[in-house]
């Protein structure tokens, strides 16, 4: 790709999303010091509230690791947050589209 084109990578296909989902599970477990093994977080399991039981403090922490790892600055009002953090897969798709690393 020429240097003067947007640095955004090409979005990954479905295999790429799967890998990203696993990566994110690992990052989340480590960043939040969760008891559950990363492999146990299902791609469609709810992250917020019931399900993994994350709260807004956790979301901010995840945003931090995601920005460091993938160069994505999360931007959202609370409605969009609910959608982005509805599941690992949703989060992976958001990161996939917006990542710069």
């Amino acid at each position: 790709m020429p240097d003067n084109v947007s640095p955004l990578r090409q979005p990954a296909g479905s295999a790429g999303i799967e890998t990203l989902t696993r990566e994110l599970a690992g990052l989340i477990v480590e960043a939040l010091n969760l008891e559950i093994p990363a492999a146990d977080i299902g791609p469609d399991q709810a992250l917020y509230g019931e399900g993994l039981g994350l709260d807004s403090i956790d979301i901010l922490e995840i945003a931090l690791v995601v920005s460091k790892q993938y160069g994505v600055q999360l931007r959202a009002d609370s409605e969009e947050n609910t959608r982005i953090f509805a599941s690992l897969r949703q989060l992976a798709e958001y990161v996939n589209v917006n990542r710069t690393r």
Partner: protein
Amino acid sequence: MLAYRAGAPITAGQFLADVERVAAALAPGGHVLNVCEDRYRFAVGFGASLVAGKVSLLPSTRTPEVIAQLRRFAPDAFCLTDERDCGVELPRVRFPEAATAAPSASPGGFRVPSIDADARAAWVFTSGSTGTPVPHEKAFGRNLIACVRVEAQRLGIPERPTHAIVATVPPQHMYGLESSVLMPLSNGHALVAERPFYPADICAVLEAVPRPRVLITTPLHLRALMASGLAVPATDLIVSATAPLPGQLASEVEERCATRLLEIYGTTETGTIAARRTTQTPEWRLWPGVRLEPRDGATFARGGHVAQPMRLLDVLEVTGSERFLLHGRIADLVNIAGKRSSLAYLNHQLNSIPGVIDGAFFHGDSPGTDAAVTRVGACVVAPGLDAAAINAELRRRLDPVFLPRPLLLVASLPRTSTGKLPEAALRSLAAAQQKPPAAE
């Protein structure tokens, strides 16, 4: 300007027209639970409630249990919401939008409603050691406006319309009500409708309003903002409260943002009572008229805008006639990212769950790093329940930040023969439960 939303100004005339319209649209009940997410609409709703002689209810959380308790406290309570789906189980009034914008200059000038200084503006609630939240009355002038007029002075911002006040905190809690709604309104500064969350959002909202700007926020958000590496738009004052701000973080914020940072100290019961410039002194300076009294092994705050003598839940050392040092919380107090509760309250909620024989929360180990959040854990005796079931029940009673991490199911708690539960024994039990399984 009175307010900004998405960078667009809202005039005082518009505000007064909105207040009048909303006051007429409120339900007949005398108590309002104002859950408007948009800070401007919250402010309009708060003003409309005052004008209509209704009292605003400000619980610390809105779990189903707390809502049920509010219904018992005020059977005529209703909910004012600016969202389509509001899960609160109270009669609901949807915030009515104006059909047309108010004229920017009304021919007869504005009629600013006059509110009696002693009018009961709000009930705020704290969690006591029993299961029921404790109500504290806030008189409009005496307790609220008196406090925020001083706040502007102590923050070093003028008492005339100059600044735009951006805040990350909700208007429904005392800090946000005072600093992000009433302080601007009573001193003529502009309040900002948004409540930015992520660092990128905070920067965007700051950028959208004219200088001079103030950011009202907490250590949690400041830490995230610094860690993000983003360039923060020029901000003329940053205010932090709800939890102690590490000195190093304070210095970093002042340096990287080329700004002044002030911390304010207060409680739900007393409102804001002191402030300090963290990078210059560890000492806090009290609001005028507020006095600290040692009594019964604790410190009470009284006088000034404080409604009645209130026991403070921190260890304070008086160092002068209006100055003190903070030495940390008393053992029972829980503060997670600025949300306050007590071990006694949490334990009461846990043990009220059917099927829980005995349960106790404990303070988690401090992560040891800068301002990272310390959680509470819990050991629970509940033979017929699993962790998910217990958490589901806790979720009905507690703000999510207080859910235990970890939640450990145990056969019994290490109580003494008199039923006391020494903290050390509880923590040992927790540590033992968490040891990794022996290698095969």
